[in-house]
């Protein structure tokens, strides 16, 4: 145990003192996020659009009270209202336009208002996903209150009530998509370059040979290296998340899947790195080999742009890359709150991770034959 702690301790000190490694594992992903965030966040943000579908239409004209209600919404001036034709299928429309907030005034609104039992339905993404939803809900509540007072001179009794429905939005901002991918990418580069660099460098210096003459076992050594990678990956991930939340207001749903995914990622890539280090002996060529693997994987795994936008051939390739599943899983769990898909991706990354780390550990040469 002391020996493993010594390995982790030594490696962490080395990491903190190496400016290049610190740059690639911490500064680079954060710079990348700031850069991409700045470039892609200027496009107009669909979140502030507030869709209203007035279904209470009589002879092609909105009913009087429903029309009044819409005007009152308009008068608040804070909502960017877009009217949706009453003939549109609500569900399809939401999906196609990527609607995040929609108010539905049902058929018969005028009649039921007179009977003092009308209701409207406000569909929004969960407020944990987007805090504007809370603001909008407040505004609509205000409007309803005014409407009630205007209609009856008192409040209660209520004329109109509001029903809330959650929307699963598929129209996240680019940065929401990008941050989990960035974490996946960082886990990959940190893991692969970490393991390759650490092992080839230490082999070149004779440190591995020296360690092999001590009572330290290969098993302890590898556990130490993996723990080190895990700590390094956790620090990188947390740093990215902190900047993401502070600068871009990225919404992160912490849950068990993301934690398992990060652990699984933190063993998959060092495992791959060990495999590379075993076959490529010199430091320089090992670096080149690591680059040759990480770069394509970075672009083909949907780190920067969704796989759906890629040609079929590239999508096929993406399907065999572990980073694809890691990034997808992180998105499912951290952003989309899509538990079943997160579970699927987590399971794949975990299994692949275990396979790689076992193979990597077995073939890492320690004592010579």
């Amino acid at each position, binding site marked *: 145990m*002391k*020996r493993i*702690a*010594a390995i982790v*301790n*030594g490696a962490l*000190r*080395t990491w903190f*003192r*190496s400016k290049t490694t610190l740059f690639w594992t911490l500064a680079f992903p954060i710079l990348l996020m700031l850069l991409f965030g700045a470039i892609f966040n200027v496009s107009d943000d669909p979140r502030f659009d507030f869709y209203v579908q007035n279904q209470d239409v009589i002879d092609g004209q909105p009913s009087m009270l429903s029309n009044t209600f819409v005007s009152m919404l308009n008068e608040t001036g804070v909502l960017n209202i877009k009217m949706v034709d009453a003939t549109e299928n609500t569900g399809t429309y939401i999906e196609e336009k990527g609607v995040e907030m929609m108010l539905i005034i049902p058929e018969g609104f005028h009649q039921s208002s007179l009977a003092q039992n009308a209701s409207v339905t406000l569909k929004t993404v969960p407020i944990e996903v987007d805090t504007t939803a809370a603001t909008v809900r407040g505004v609509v509540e205000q409007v309803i209150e005014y409407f009630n007072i205007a209609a009856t001179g008192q409040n209660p009794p209520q004329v109109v009530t509001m029903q809330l429905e959650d929307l699963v939005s598929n129209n996240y901002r680019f940065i929401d998509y990008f941050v989990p991918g960035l974490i996946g990418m960082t886990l990959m580069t940190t893991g692969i370059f970490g393991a390759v660099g650490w092992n080839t460098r230490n082999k070149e*210096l*004779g*440190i591995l*040979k*020296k*360690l*092999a*003459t*001590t*009572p*330290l076992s290969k098993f302890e050594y590898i556990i130490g290296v993996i723990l080190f990678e895990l700590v390094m990956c956790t620090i990188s991930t947390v740093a990215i998340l902190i900047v993401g939340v502070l600068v871009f207001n990225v919404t992160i749903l912490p849950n068990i899947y993301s934690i398992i995914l990060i652990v699984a990622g933190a063993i998959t890539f060092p495992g791959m790195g060990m495999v590379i280090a075993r076959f490529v002996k010199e430091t320089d060529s090992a670096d080149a080999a690591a680059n040759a693997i990480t770069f394509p994987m970075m672009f083909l795994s949907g780190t920067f742009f969704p796989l759906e936008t890629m040609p079929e051939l590239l999508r096929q390739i993406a399907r065999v890359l572990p980073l694809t599943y890691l990034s997808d899983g992180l998105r499912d769990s951290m952003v989309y709150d899509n538990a079943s898909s997160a579970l699927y991706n987590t399971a794949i990354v975990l299994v692949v991770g275990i396979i790689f780390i076992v193979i990597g550990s077995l073939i890492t040469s320690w*004592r*010579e*034959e």
Partner: protein
Amino acid sequence: MSNQAVIQVDSIVKKYKDVTAVNGVSFTVNRGEVFSFVGPNGAGKTTTVEILVCLRDLTAGKAKVLGFDVSSRKGKQQIRKRVGVLPQDFNTFDLLTVKENINYYKRMYGNVGRDTDDLIKLVNLEHKSKTLYKNLSGGLKKRVAIAITLANDPEIIFLDEPTTGLDPKARRDVWKLIEGLRDQGKTIFLTTHYMDEAQVLSDRVVIISYGKIIADGTPSELILKHGGKTTLIVEDGKKEAYEVLKTKFPKARIENGDVLVPINNKSDLPNAVMALNGNKTKFGELIVRRPNLEDVFLNLTGKKIVDGELN
């Protein structure tokens, strides 16, 4: 000094695919001696060391270190605890300080033995203990490596070419450290291709060439047996001095303008000097050269070792 054997090697053979690196080597090392394994690059020194410290399995033969069999699992565990190894060309973590580096390896042994500050003092690096390893000169790096080798207060210290690539001053510092360790009663297994180093430091020398031992003994035994004669060198004596000396010394010869006269007994030297003097022969200087281990190697193999390579 007790003559207790701490390393016993019996006809060991090590084959790599098509190379036989060590070919039937036998020797013993006694407790408390500085034992040198001398030979050119590729002779099989490192391979032998790596077998003895359980880094490699042997192909045939038997070897025991401190009474433990290097081929048994239990033996290996015991040996690893008790020996200290400085691998050839060893360097440690660039971005750890001297002290952190030594601590690192000490933890691998469960922090037995002397404490880190003692080790730092032993190699005279007190003023550098907080310096990063990468910022040290080659000589100081080697001293850190030696301190690391002593991390577990080992009974036997294996030093594989500890002075290769060092400047003369740093080499001498390492020699002093080795002498200090011997004075503390440590057994030292040293490999080198520097004959002068072996001669100065060793209690016993084994010369190895192409995987086979070609000589084994104390430096003076080897020189006496294989070193050849003491030689009088008549610098710049040329033909003239040669003519004067050749009647009394038929084995005299000219080499690069110098006349070399083998000295066989006590009277040879004065006789030669008198002959030169009597004839008013012109020459540069007179030098008496005693044979050394280099001559031993030359006489045994017909070759010299220059920068580790056969020449």
